C-alpha cells in the first residue's frame, strides 16, 4: 500500500479513454463501478469538450455483485453498438472490475458483435495512465494497420509524407503543438499523411503504413506503436521532440534527412527566443537556479531550453515517467545533476525543499509545492488543470512554442529593476523580501477606514462571507447603515443590507 496525497497519473483506463476520446468512430465499453464516470468531466470540463467522451460504463453496484455482472456487461456492449455504431470497439475493465474478473474482452469477442473488438488488458494495480494510453494506441494500430509487410510505394510525383503519432485528448498543449509541427513540416515540403490518435478514425489507422516515416511527438503515448510500425513496415521513426529552438532545428534536420531532402537553410530568426534571450534585459536570468520535473519528454526538453537557451543553472531534473527512466537518468548525467525518477509527490517536495531553486518548471502538483515554499513556478507538463487548456494559441513545440516558453518561464520571476532595488533598500514597507513581485499585481490590502461601529457579532458574521466579496459587503453595509442613520451595525443590519443591494 502506498500513501498518496497527489498522484501524477491516473489509472491506465484513463489513458485508454484519452485515446478513444481523441479518435473518431471508436467507442469504449468500460466495465466499472458506479462513480467512475467522474472521468467524463476531465474531458468535458478540463478540456472543455462540447461532447461526451465515447465511453459506455457498466456502472455496476453492490447489488449487482450478487448477480450476474457479466450480463450487465453484455447488455452494455449490445447497447453501445446499437446506439453509437462505432467502427471499432475497445473493451476493458477499471481497477474494481479487474478484481471481479469478468474478462470483458473475451466476453465481447464471443458475442459476435457487428464491429471489430479490441480487448484491453490494463493492469490497474501495476500500471498508470500514460502506459494505458500507449498500450491502447498500440493495440488499435496493430488491429487496424493490417498484417506486416512491405510498405506500399509512394505515388510518383507525390511529396514525401509522414504520420504524426501521439497527440491525444487531455494532452498538454497537443492541439497547438500539432499546428506548429504541421507548419514546420509544410515549410520543408513534407506532407502530413495521418495524425493519430487525435482526430483519426480506425480507417485512418489502416493507412498508417503508407507514410515514409513516423514522427513520434509524444513518446509516452506513441513509442510502442512507432516501434511496432518500424518493425512491421520498415517505417523509420523521427524521435527528436521539437521543444525549444535547438531541438526544433534538430527536428527539421532529421525530418529532411528521413524525407531525403537537401538540408534546409537555417532560418535564424524564426523564433524570437534567441534575440529575447540575448537582449540585455535577460542578463539577470543568467545562472538562475531551476528545478525541472514532469513527464520525461517535457522535462528533458525543458532542461535543454533552460540551460542552453535561457542560461539558467539546472539544479535538479526528474520525472514520474518510469517507462523513460533511462532517458531521464542519461539527461541528468549530461547536466551533472542527480536524477529523480519517482511518482511520489512527497519525495519531489522533499527534493525541492532541499535544493531551494529560484524557479520550478513542473506540473500542476509542483504548483502546490511551489506555493507552499514560496517559489515562482511555471507548468511545463501534464498533469495540468483547466487553466492550462487556454483559448489562445499556446504551443510548446516549434518556433512559436519557443516564444511561449520564453514568456511563460520568465514571467513568474521578479523583474530586473525590482530585484536590484530590493537588494539595495530592504526596509521598504511595500516592496520587501516577503512581498510577491509587484508586476503580478498583489497589492497590500489597505485597511478600510472606520465609518460605522460594528457590533462584535456582526463583525464575526462578516468574516464568514467569502473573502472575494467581503470588501464589497462591508462597504455596502456601511453605506446602508449611514443612509439610515444606524449607529451600530448588527447581524440584522448586515443581512438587511445584503437583501437591499441584491440584484
Amino acid at each position: 500500500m502506498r500513501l498518496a496525497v497527489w498522484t501524477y497519473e491516473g489509472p491506465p483506463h484513463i489513458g485508454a479513454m484519452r485515446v478513444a476520446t481523441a479518435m473518431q468512430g471508436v467507442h469504449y465499453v468500460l466495465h466499472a463501478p458506479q462513480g467512475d464516470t467522474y472521468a467524463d468531466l476531465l474531458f468535458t470540463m478540463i478540456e472543455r469538450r462540447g461532447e461526451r467522451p465515447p465511453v459506455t460504463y457498466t456502472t455496476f453496484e453492490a447489488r449487482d455483485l450478487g448477480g450476474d455482472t457479466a450480463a450487465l456487461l453484455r447488455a452494455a456492449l449490445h447497447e453501445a453498438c446499437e446506439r453509437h455504431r462505432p467502427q471499432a470497439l475497445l473493451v476493458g475493465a477499471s481497477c474494481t472490475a479487474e478484481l471481479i474478473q469478468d474478462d470483458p474482452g473475451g466476453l465481447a469477442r464471443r458475442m459476435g458483435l457487428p464491429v471489430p473488438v479490441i480487448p484491453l488488458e490494463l493492469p490497474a494495480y501495476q500500471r498508470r495512465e500514460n502506459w494505458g494510453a500507449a498500450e491502447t494506441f498500440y493495440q488499435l494500430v496493430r488491429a487496424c494497420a493490417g498484417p506486416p509487410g512491405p510498405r506500399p510505394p509512394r505515388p510518383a510525383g507525390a511529396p514525401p509524407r509522414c504520420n504524426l503519432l501521439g497527440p491525444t485528448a487531455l494532452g498538454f498543449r497537443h492541439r497547438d503543438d500539432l499546428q506548429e509541427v504541421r507548419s514546420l513540416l509544410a515549410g520543408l515540403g513534407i506532407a502530413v499523411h495521418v495524425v493519430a490518435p487525435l482526430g483519426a478514425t480506425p480507417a485512418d489507422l489502416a493507412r498508417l503504413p503508407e507514410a515514409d516515416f513516423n514522427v513520434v511527438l509524444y513518446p509516452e503515448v506513441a513509442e510502442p506503436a512507432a516501434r511496432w510500425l518500424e518493425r512491421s513496415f520498415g517505417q523509420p521513426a523521427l524521435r527528436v521532440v521539437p521543444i525549444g529552438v535547438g531541438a526544433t532545428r534538430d527536428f527539421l534536420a532529421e525530418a529532411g534527412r528521413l524525407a531525403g531532402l537537401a538540408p534546409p537553410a537555417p532560418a535564424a530568426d524564426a523564433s524570437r527566443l534567441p534575440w529575447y534571450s540575448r537582449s540585455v534585459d535577460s542578463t539577470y536570468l543568467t545562472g538562475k537556479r531551476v528545478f525541472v520535473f514532469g513527464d520525461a519528454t517535457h522535462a528533458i526538453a525543458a532542461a535543454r531550453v533552460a540551460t542552453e537557451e535561457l542560461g539558467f543553472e539546472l539544479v535538479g531534473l526528474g520525472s514520474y515517467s518510469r517507462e523513460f527512466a533511462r532517458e531521464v537518468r542519461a539527461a541528468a548525467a549530461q547536466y551533472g545533476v542527480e536524477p529523480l525518477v519517482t511518482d511520489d509527490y512527497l519525495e519531489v517536495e522533499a527534493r525541492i525543499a532541499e535544493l531551494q531553486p529560484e524557479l520550478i518548471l513542473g506540473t500542476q502538483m509542483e504548483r502546490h509545492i511551489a506555493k507552499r515554499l514560496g517559489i515562482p513556478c511555471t507548468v511545463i507538463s501534464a498533469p495540468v488543470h483547466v487553466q492550462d487548456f487556454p483559448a489562445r494559441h499556446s504551443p510548446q513545440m516549434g518556433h512559436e512554442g519557443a516564444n511561449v516558453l520564453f514568456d511563460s518561464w520568465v514571467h513568474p520571476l521578479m523583474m530586473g529593476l525590482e530585484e536590484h532595488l530590493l537588494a539595495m533598500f530592504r526596509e521598504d514597507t511595500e516592496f520587501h523580501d516577503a512581498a510577491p513581485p509587484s508586476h503580478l499585481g498583489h497589492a497590500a490590502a489597505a485597511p478600510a477606514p472606520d465609518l460605522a461601529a460594528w457590533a462584535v457579532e456582526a463583525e464575526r458574521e462578516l468574516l464568514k462571507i467569502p473573502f472575494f466579496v467581503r470588501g464589497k459587503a462591508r462597504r455596502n453595509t456601511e453605506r446602508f447603515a449611514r443612509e439610515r442613520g444606524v449607529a451600530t451595525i448588527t447581524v440584522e443590519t448586515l443581512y438587511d443590507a445584503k437583501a437591499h443591494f441584491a440584484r
Partner: protein
Amino acid sequence: MSGAGALPTGAEAGTARPPVLRERGQREVFCGLTSIVWLHRKVQDAFFLVVGSRTCAHLLQSAAGVMIFAEPRFATAIIEERDLAGLADANEELDRVVGQLVARRPEIRLLFLVGSCPSEVIKLDLARAAARLSRRLLPAVRVLHYSGSGIETTFTQGEDACLAALVPEMPAATDRSLLVVGALAEVVEDQLRRLLTALGIGPLHFLPPRRARDLAPIGPQTRFLLAQPFLGETARALEARGARRIPAPFPLGAEGTTLWLRAAAEAWGIGAARFREVTAMAERRAREGLLRLRDGLAGKRLFFFPDSQLEVPLARFLSRELGMVPLEVGTPYLHREHLAEELALLPAGTPLSEGQHLERQLDRCRAARPDLTVCGLGLANPLEAEGLTTKWSIELVFTPIQGYEQAADLAGLFARPLVRRDRLAV
C-alpha cells in the same frame, strides 16, 4: 437478474403520490468518496484516508484539485499488486501507512478509514482495522471507518455513511435537546442557531460538529431535524439510540425554512405569535429577495438529472416560490419517508424518476428541450453545445443555500445561466 438494457421501465402509481419512473442502466453520478471534498473542511481536526486504488485518488484530485492548492486533509492508501496477493499483508500495510500519516499530521484527532469499491470487493475488513488502530492510537487519535464506495453510495450518501459512523461515538444524554443533522456552511449553521435559540429551543447541537471532540450528546429525549435529504442511514442510527426525528421539509427557500423551523417550534410547544415574532423579519427579507428574481424564472421549464438527492426539495422551492415548471425530477435515491413533506408540496403530477438509464434520460431531456437542465459536469458542456442551458448541480452542495438569508442566493444560482445566455452576444 437481467442486464441493464433489459430492465423494465415502469411507472408506479402511488396512492396520492406522483408517479415514479424507475430505471436502471448507466448512471452518471459521483461515488460517495466525493463527499470528502467538503467533509474534510467541515470537521477541522479530522482526516480522511481512502483505502482504494489509483482511480480513487485520481477521482478525489480531479474533483477537488481545482480548488485545493495546499495539502488537504485527505489522502489515499493506494492498494498495489502485492496487497492483492494476501490479505494479512494488506492489514500490515494499512497499519504502516496510518503510522506514516499520523507522524506527518500530528494535529489529527479523528481518522476515518474510508472504504472504496476495491477495498469492498476484496473484503478488506476496515471495521476491524479501525478498531485495531484505535486501540493503538487512542487517546491521541480515534479511528473510525465507513464506506464511500461507488457500489454502495452515490455522492452525498458518502456524508450519510460518515455521519452514521459518528453516531455510536456520541456521548449519552438524558436531557431534552435538539440536534440538527447534516453538514452546513458555517454561516448557515450560525444563522439557524440564532433563530432556534431566539425561539427558545435548546440545548441545541449540530452533527457533524466543527471539531471531532465536540460531538453532541444523544439519548431518548433528543429530537433531531434533518437539514439535508440524504441522511437515511444516519437517521436510522440516531433512532437506534432513542432519538426521534421531527418530520419537516428541508430549509430551502423562505417557505422551506419557515416550515422547517416551525416543525421544531411545534415540537417545543412554542406559540404561533412567538414564532412570527422571531422569524417574520428574516422571512420577509427572503421573500423580497426572491421576488426580484421571480420575473426571470417564472414559467421556465426545468429538468433534473439525478445527483445529490437535493433534487426534490429544489424542485419544490423553484416551483412554489419562483414559478418554475419541473418537467422531470431525477434523484439517485428517493427516501419516501424523509421526503414525505416535500412530495406533498410538489405540484401535482410532477414526473419523478429514481435511478438512471443515462441514454434514455438524455433522449427525454432532448425531446423536452427544457429551459434549464440541472446536471453534473460530465453532461453540462455537451448539453450546452447542443443549445440547452444548464446549471451544474455539484455547486449546490458546495454553496451556502439553506436558510432565509441564502434563499435569494439559491435562486440566483438558477437565474445566472439564463441571464448569461441572454447577455452573451457571441
